C-alpha cells in the first residue's frame, strides 16, 4: 500500500513538473508575439491616456473660461480661478460633472502645480533690486504673521474644537 502510494506520488510529481515545463515552453514561444502585442497595447494605452488628459484639461479650461467671463461681466473683485474652482466643486457636488471626467488631468496638473509658479517668480529679476534692501524686514513680517495666524487658528480649535475622537472617517 505504502509502496503504491509512494509510486503514485512520484508519478504525480513528474507529471506536474513536465506540465510546468510545457507551460513554460509555451510561454517562451509566445514571448515574441506577446511582447510585441504588449508593447503595442502599452503605446495605445499611453496615447489614449494622453488624449483623455487633453480632453479633461479642455473641460477644466472651459470651466475656467466661463468663470472668467462671469467675473468680468459682473465686475467682481474676485480672482476668476477661485470662481472656477468653486464652480467645479459645485458641479461635482450636484453630479453634473463626474469625478472621473476630470480626475486624470486634475492629478497631473495639481502634482506639477509648482511648475507654473516658477516663470512668475523669475519675474523677480526685474524687481529684485527693490527686494534686497528690505528682505530681512519682509521675512520678519512673514514669520510674525505666520506664527500669529497659526496660534489663532490652532489655539481656537484646541480650545473649542472636537475632543477625544480624532480619527478620520
Amino acid at each position, binding site marked *: 500500500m505504502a509502496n503504491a502510494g509512494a509510486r503514485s506520488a512520484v508519478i504525480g510529481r513528474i507529471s506536474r513538473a513536465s506540465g510546468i515545463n510545457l507551460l513554460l515552453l509555451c510561454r517562451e514561444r509566445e514571448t515574441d508575439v506577446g511582447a510585441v502585442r504588449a508593447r503595442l497595447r502599452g503605446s495605445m494605452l499611453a496615447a489614449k491616456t494622453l488624449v483623455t488628459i487633453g480632453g479633461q484639461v479642455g473641460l477644466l479650461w472651459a470651466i475656467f473660461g466661463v468663470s472668467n467671463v462671469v467675473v468680468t461681466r459682473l465686475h467682481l473683485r474676485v*480672482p476668476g480661478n477661485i470662481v472656477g474652482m468653486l464652480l467645479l466643486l459645485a458641479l461635482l457636488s450636484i453630479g453634473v460633472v463626474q469625478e472621473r471626467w476630470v480626475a486624470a488631468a486634475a492629478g497631473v*496638473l495639481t502634482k506639477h502645480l509648482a511648475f507654473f509658479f516658477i516663470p512668475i517668480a523669475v519675474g523677480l529679476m526685474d524687481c529684485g533690486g527693490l527686494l534686497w534692501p528690505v528682505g530681512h524686514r519682509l521675512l520678519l513680517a512673514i514669520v510674525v504673521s505666520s506664527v500669529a495666524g497659526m496660534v489663532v487658528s*490652532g489655539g481656537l480649535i484646541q480650545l473649542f474644537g472636537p475632543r477625544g475622537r480624532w480619527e478620520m472617517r
Partner: protein
Amino acid sequence: MHDGAVTAFVIAVTVVAYAASRELFLRTQVTLLNPVCVSTITIILVLLACGIRGDQYQPGRELMTLLLGPATVALAVPLYRHRRLLVTYWTSITLGVVCGSVAAIATAVLFARWASLDRMLVLAVAPKSAMTPIAIDIARILGTNMSITAVLVVCTGMVGAMVGPRVLTALRISNPIARGVAIGTTSHATGTAAILHEGETQGAMSAVAMALTAIFTAFVGPFLIPWLVVLGE
C-alpha cells in the same frame, strides 16, 4: 539670438530646472531646497549669465503659465474628495480658517507698515498665506507686483513648514485637527507636505484648510487688505 530661439531656450531652461530641483527635493526632503525657490534662483542666474533680459522671458512665461488657470480650477477635485471631512468638522475648520486668515493678513499688513515698508510691498505681503495662484491673482487685483507676491508666498510656505509644527508643540496645541488647520491656513501646500509626516488626519485637515483659506482670502482679501492699509495711515 532670434526671439523664437530665446523663447525655446528659456522654456527648456525652466523645464530642466524644475525637473532637476523637484528630483533634488524628493531625494533630500529638505524644506529649504524648495523646488520653486531653487529653480527660480538657478534660472535667474542662467539668464543673467546668457545676457537674456527680463522682457525676453515674457513670451516664454505666457506660454508656460497657460495651464495655470485650469490647474487652479482642478484643485476642486482634492477638496471634493475630502468633502466628508469638511462636513464632519465644518465648525472647527471654519473657525480656524476664518480667524487664522484674518489674523495672518492683519498682522502682516500692520507689521509691514510698522517696519515702514513700501506700500507696494505691504500689499504684496498681505495675501501670502493663500496658495500661490490665488495670491498672485489677488496681487493683480490690488495692483501690486505679482512676482514679489509669488516669491513671498513660497517663502511663507517654507517658514511655516520649518517652524510651524514646533511652534504648535511649544504652545501645547496637540489636537491633530487644530494642528492640521493651523498649518494649512498659514502655510498652504508646503506646510501641508510637512505636517503630513505627523499623520494622515493632520495632512488631510491641512489640505482642506489650505483650499478654504484660498477661497476665503480670494473673497475677503481684495476688500480687507486695502482697508487695513488705509487704516494704518
